């Protein structure tokens, strides 16, 4: 199909408009972050009037009373917690999703329903019982507790996604591997997982984002500023009486940057990973 020049031009106009809408609020935050004041800069123009990197310097250079470099430690906390959450969540999700996709066993349908149902109960009311639970498990004030909670809370979505994708992988491939002499585990690791890479990438991204962006639980469970995750640090700029907008914006950009980078790195998988589950020829 060949498009006429006019149609192509219109397509570009439409897309450019959409991009402007998509970028405008972000530029606005960039402007806040670069502005010399802590105030909410309020004008329609997304172009900074004055540029200073003070806010970034403050946010990155934050130290506590003992001279510990908070930003560095919190970045480490975020990376460790999010990374392990992704790892734990993904390994749990991958095995469960594979079983749900391939095997018949009692309680399977009920399990799938439960997964969907857990998405429907508002999370806000779960904090109190969760805290007691983690204490019982001895996981308060530890990254372990956070990792466990994060990885399970993103599990239902991950399992759904992965199951959908596994359903599209032809069984013959696995049978071929079986004939080639692979054990069930080898089939799973050497054939199924490499083929599910797009879906794995997407679910990993989601797990990572869940952990990377959460702050209420992190602030509630962790009792040491140097082990807070970055969003908790970011939230500290929002006070009861006033908000340090400049710091918040700079922090928001720093917190969002890795997620964005991941998004862009994985975006070629996004399209396939998200849809393949549902579209099978």
């Amino acid at each position, binding site marked *: 199909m060949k498009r006429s020049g006019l149609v192509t031009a219109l397509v570009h106009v439409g897309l450019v408009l959409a991009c402007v809408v998509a970028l405008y609020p972000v530029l606005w935050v960039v402007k806040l972050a670069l502005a010399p004041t802590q105030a*909410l800069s309020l004008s329609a123009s997304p172009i900074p009037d004055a540029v200073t990197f003070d806010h970034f310097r403050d946010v990155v250079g934050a130290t506590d009373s003992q001279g510990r470099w908070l930003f560095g430690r919190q970045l480490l906390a975020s990376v460790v917690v999010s990374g392990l959450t992704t790892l734990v969540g993904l390994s749990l999700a991958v*095995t469960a999703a594979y079983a749900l996709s391939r095997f018949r066993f009692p309680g399977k349908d009920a399990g799938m329903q439960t997964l969907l149902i857990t998405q429907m109960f508002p999370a806000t009311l779960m904090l109190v019982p969760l805290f007691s639970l983690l204490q019982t498990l001895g996981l308060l004030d530890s990254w372990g507790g956070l990792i466990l909670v994060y990885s399970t809370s993103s599990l239902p979505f991950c399992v759904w996604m992965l199951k959908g994708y596994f359903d599209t992988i032809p069984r013959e491939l696995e049978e071929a591997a079986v004939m080639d002499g692979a054990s069930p585990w080898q089939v799973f690791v050497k054939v199924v997982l490499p083929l599910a890479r797009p879906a794995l990438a997407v679910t990993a991204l989601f797990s990572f984002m869940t952990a990377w962006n959460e702050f209420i639980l992190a602030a509630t469970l962790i009792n040491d500023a140097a082990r807070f995750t970055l969003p908790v640090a970011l939230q500290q700029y929002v006070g009861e009486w006033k908000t340090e907008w400049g710091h918040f914006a700079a922090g928001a950009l720093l917190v969002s940057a890795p997620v964005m980078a991941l998004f862009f790195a994985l975006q070629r998988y996004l399209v396939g990973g998200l849809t393949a589950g549902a579209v099978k020829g």
Partner: protein
Amino acid sequence: MLRAVLGGLLAASVTASGAEPLKLWHAYRGGEEQAIEAAVKAFTAETGIPVELLSVPYDAFSSKLTSAIPHDAGPDVFIFAHERLRQFHRLKVVAPTTTRLERARYFQSTVDALEVDGELYGYPLSLKTLALFVNTALVPEAPKTTDAWLETMAKVSDGKAARFGLAYAAGDFYLHAPFVFGFGARLFDETGRASFDTPGMAKSLAFVKSLQDRGFMPQEVSGALVKSLFNDGRAAMVISGPWFTGEIENVSYRIVPLPTVSETGLPLQPFLGVEAALVSARSKQPDAAHALAKFLSVGQATLLRVNPGRQIPAEIAAYERPEVLADPTIAAFKDVAARAVPTPNTLEMAKVWEPMKLALRGVLQGEVAPSAAGQLAERRYRALNRERPEPTNATPWLVLLGLAVMGLVGWQVKGLRGVSFAKRYPEAARGLAYVAPAAVGIAVLIVIPFAVGISLAFFHHEAGDYTFVGLANFADILTSKGYRLTEPLSFWFTLAVTIAWTFVNVALHLSIGLFLAILLKDPLLKLRAVYRVVLIVPWAVPNYITALMWKGMFHRQFGAINGLLAALGVEPVSWFTQFSTSFAANVITNTWLGFPFMMVVSLGALQSIPQDLYEAAEVDGASKWTQFRRITLPLLKPALLPSVILGSVWTFNMFNIIYLVSGGEPGGATDILVSEAYRWAFQRNEQYGFAAAYSVLIFFVLLGWTRLTKRLTGPEAA
């Protein structure tokens, strides 16, 4: 008995060893944080007791405290405003200081603020209250009475120059309270119950409304506007608290007490908030903890609080120190504080805020007459503060639950009979082994809290006590007890809003996403990769950041959206005063953040449609539109359906956007079920049971919805 003795011994030994550092939690930032750090250092230097400091984000502080302390995971000392004291007391989180506190060292009002049921809790550190900030260039003589005040305002206000006599966040009841007291109204009657429908209340509202009507004061004032007007010299006077001093730039000003109402002779009496060092009831080292808390409230720590903390100290002696007297702000606030009344830390006070906010905003926006506003608040008050339903005997319910469980198990077992298990499920062992880790995780960390949440719905929670009330919560919600079906508080109203919210959002996400996907489909399109990357950006931004970002952009006076509208010659819209625009603001925000997901899904789905179908249709003479309707849409349906269902569930429970963007304004009309449940749990007297019942209903609505979609789409979706 024996255990108590042992416990005592154990506690004593811990204290004696003194190895454990004290833990101190606060939510301070900037100068205040430096002050507390320095004070703690001084304490350790003096006593040799090490202290661990933790600064917690304000948003999470209260829930962190109330979660951690009862589990012995909390601090020994924490710093909090006295308004929460009653709640902390109820949860048995704070230790009394009645016998330890040297009352005479602090302002009487700050000590009063720390009293609950005849006991004192904590050590007063600093106070926050409201004063009049006067631009001395515009108003050389600070007015002492409201008559003089009005005169000054009339003189200074200039509609053409967009200059106002006064600016303050008038929609906030905290800032309106001085007027209520000034016009002789009392917030509570003799029995201690809140009273709204009083002549003084009506007068106070009428007075404020007249300020606005006469052009002395701008409309819809936010903190940001106050700051900008004052700094630009476009607001001669401002009502604000000590935190405002940090915002003033290049204006010479004076801080004076609020004027006296000429009509009544009473001063405009602001609330007084007291920040106190509270000692945890569960501290293992109570003596050391009390010592630390006391240390923070007096002497050297007080001076640090003044500088670099810039706080108004509660210790009287401080005001005799030259370094304090030299600070005009702090000295001024001393006078102001002398006239203030501590915000009552009673349960009843907590019930006043929401009804008053509703009445206040109704009056300021001209929707409610000042004389009728009291009644409006009274109605809202009654609706929010439910009587405790009759307690019910739980035994029949437990029996019923037991029977239901047994029935379910029996039914399952019956279903398995007939075909041998091994034949029916040849891979059961392997399957279950694969699922087990995830299932255990979900069971422990999701299903158990979920079950606890559900069971709460059968209880009434008041003041830390849970009473079993059977289905009363559900009955009250579903019959909309206490308010009309069409009021924002009604479950049915909120449900309708929620459904509209979900439908509009999903429809927009889908249509915009699909539209962009179609534009992006052509693999030969130039810059395709760039467009795709840029269009995914909104998805990658954490959604609380998105919400705060858009909240700012919808700002009445400075928001980018109104800026754009002005550039187009459209009147600025005051987004959060009407249901339609407020709802639209929420939708716009959520659409911005939600369309990329649908775009990506649609793109994938579109690419899976074989190109030859279109060629076939072309040959058959189908127009582009027909091709879209007859080929694209039907083939996309199975691919998009799961995403649409998932998307609708997410949108249905999209708490962050509603809570942070519109905040339910106006009057809770744009709240959706989740945010309403949150308010019942955390903003309306902790009616956890009621909130849980809401959550259960949300759950059933969603369950019904997914069932419905499953049925509608039939087997093809399976």
